[in-house]
């Protein structure tokens, strides 16, 4: 399994790198508003009422670029790969190198399944 992981390492690092860079940049505003400002009542909940949230998620730029769905897909998918790779690294650092192949496959597998589920959810809006 480690041989397979080494073979697909460029792909893993691509997703991991974008997860750190783009994922972090998109998550900051999301966490601020969705996770903190609205639940704490600092921002009116109407800002993300169902109708407004749906229209933002399905918004398009110039009538043909589905910007809402693209941003959402990146926000859902990319951090999963950052998470998978860093949890794998943490596992190795804490003495789990012997099981690295199995754990790595499991973590990237979860990220892959999550990515598919996330993209299906976004496309289905």
């Amino acid at each position, binding site marked *: 399994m480690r041989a397979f992981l080494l073979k697909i390492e460029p792909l893993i690092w691509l997703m991991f790198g974008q997860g750190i860079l783009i*994922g*972090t*940049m*998109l998550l900051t505003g999301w966490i601020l508003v969705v996770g*903190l400002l609205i*639940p704490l009542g600092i921002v009116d909940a109407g800002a993300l009422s169902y109708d407004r949230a749906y229209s933002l998620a399905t918004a398009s730029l110039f009538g043909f670029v589905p910007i809402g769905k693209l941003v959402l897909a990146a926000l859902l998918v990319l951090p999963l790969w950052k*998470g998978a790779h860093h949890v794998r690294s943490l596992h190795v*650092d804490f003495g789990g190198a012997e099981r690295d192949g199995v754990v790595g496959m499991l973590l990237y597998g979860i990220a892959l399944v999550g990515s598919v*589920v996330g993209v299906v959810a976004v496309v289905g809006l």
Partner: protein
Amino acid sequence: MGRPAHPHAMAPPKPGRTRTAPPQMPSTWWSAPRIRNYLLFDATGIVYYLISFLAIGMVQALGRGPGAWDAVMTRLQHPAYIAFHVLCLVSVVFVAIRFFSLFPKAQPKMIGPLKPPPASLIHVALYVVWFGITAVMTAVLAGVIF
């Protein structure tokens, strides 16, 4: 924790020309700032995993209709979710600061025929883009614009 990590963990299939000592986790890692920060940087992966799955659940709720969406938004008011999002915010800020300081150092000497921009310029540019995207995301989601 004093046990050496596997010397070939996450290593290339062929060894390099220079022999290296096997990596070893110091038993006092929590009191050594450099490795502690390195491990904390890795540990943010758990947070990124969880926030992604939470966000996937929210988009699925949005697809199911107003009832499911309102239920999710109400659930986020629970103190446990708020505490989790505080942890998420601390994590993304930590990742951003650490990654933005590492990014310029990881640039190749040449990008095709061109030299990469100075490290300080790359560093500042990353912060400008991060603040810009965060400001726009915050304003859009909070209903200030659009």
